């Protein structure tokens, strides 16, 4: 499956400035691997050594938080848009 990943500003040094990438994969974990093949080092920025996402990284598929689906095992369909978003405070 081919999906688009939006790259947030803090990661663009790793992507040579690119703000989006087209990647292959059937799940979020496969997407992250594919992204790391294109841009070596990006996985280390967003995942712990165990492979789990870092606590301040939120991942959305078409605007939906993957923690409400299957986390990094959430399945991906062709044409999905994936966002990597740093956690931000509010009110």
């Amino acid at each position, binding site marked *: 499956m081919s999906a688009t990943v939006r790259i*947030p500003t*803090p990661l663009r040094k790793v992507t040579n400035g690119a703000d989006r990438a087209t990647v292959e994969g059937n799940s979020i974990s496969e997407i992250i691997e594919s992204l790391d093949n294109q841009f070596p080092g990006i996985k280390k920025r967003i995942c712990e050594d165990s492979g789990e996402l*870092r606590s301040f990284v939120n991942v*959305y598929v078409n605007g939906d938080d993957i923690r*409400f689906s299957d986390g990094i095992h959430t399945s991906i369909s062709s044409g999905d848009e994936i966002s990597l978003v*740093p956690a*931000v*405070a*509010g*009110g």
Partner: protein
Amino acid sequence: MSYVTNLICRECGAEYKTQPLNVCEFCFGPLEIQYDFTKIKKDVSKKTISNGPNSMWRYSQFLPVDIENAIDIGTGFTPLIHAKNLGKQLGLDSLYIKNDSVNPTFSFKDRPVAITTTKALEFGFEVLACVSTGNLMGSVAAHGSKANLETYVFYPQDLELSKIYGAAVYGSKMIAIEGNYDDANRFCSELSDIYPWAFVNINMRPFYAEGSKTLGYEIAEQLGWKAPNHCVVPGASGELHTKVWKGIQEFIDCELIENVIPKMHLAQPEGCAPISSAFNSNSRQINPVKPSTIAKSLAIGNPASGPYSVDVLNQTHGSAEIASENSIIDSIKLLAETEGIFTETAGGVVISSLKELVKKGKIKKDETVVAFITGNGLKTLESMGEIKENTVSCMPNISSFDLVKSNFKI
């Protein structure tokens, strides 16, 4: 002059120069301001603070802006009231209400926004923007007016009308997002990558967050330069809870108050309690929720500072309360009827949690308690329902009045 040295990542310790940046590029952790505390300790005393203005700017040395540039609409140094009537009902001798609903836009948000607006001008931004559950946007809109900055505010579409009017009146550009706060927040994070604006709770967040520390300083000063035994703080993103604690800690570090550690209790509503739930199940990992609560100013299902709020609960031996939705309105009325303070639903959550803490024996009769009331009741009128029990209609004549008066049940 400012005592800021740089920005530092709370997770991995990477350091950055002072700039509008909120996320560590190595680990995505949030960035925080670092100060030269040796110098602050040398320059600041109880006397220098007491001689300062009657506003949050009396603590300017602890803030990341130059006071000469301050955008000041009169924020801070709000009353700390000895709540004798409510205390008597609950069996507490030293209960205090920090009434932060009397700030210029009627919530504590004026504190972080005053800092952010001042800093946005220092950085040369022309637009101030925010994502809001209601209180923040009123404050951003007002400060934007004072600073001659254009303002854009983004909010979940189901917000209370008075909060919408409370921002629109300042001429802010109002964008109702079709979704909840967390949807709006995610969207604006992406927007902030494209638009070169000062998003107060995104790229300006390290500066924004510092404003809430002034609540910690104020209660310590107002209690006669000492920390209370307990603080009861409402929880949305978890940022306020952590920053009130940080304020108290900094005063301890600078030897302005004794090293007494208050128990920092957190109050969340049943319909959105991801931080309390995590703490109560001994976890630091916050599982996000879809909020369903009348306390809309606390309706953040994906609280960014949740893990730090859990840390504060652990460090200070605080409790994380979950107020039932049914108890919120009764608690608003209780505070109004005993102390003459009309708070919004978040304050109802605080008072309900306070009652529970006393009932469970976690707060003792002779201990000093500060309950943080952070927003005004006129902002959440819709939640109050119809007021029937003490309202009658009457013809303008004596016999009609005598008749209705005898019908009053209260």
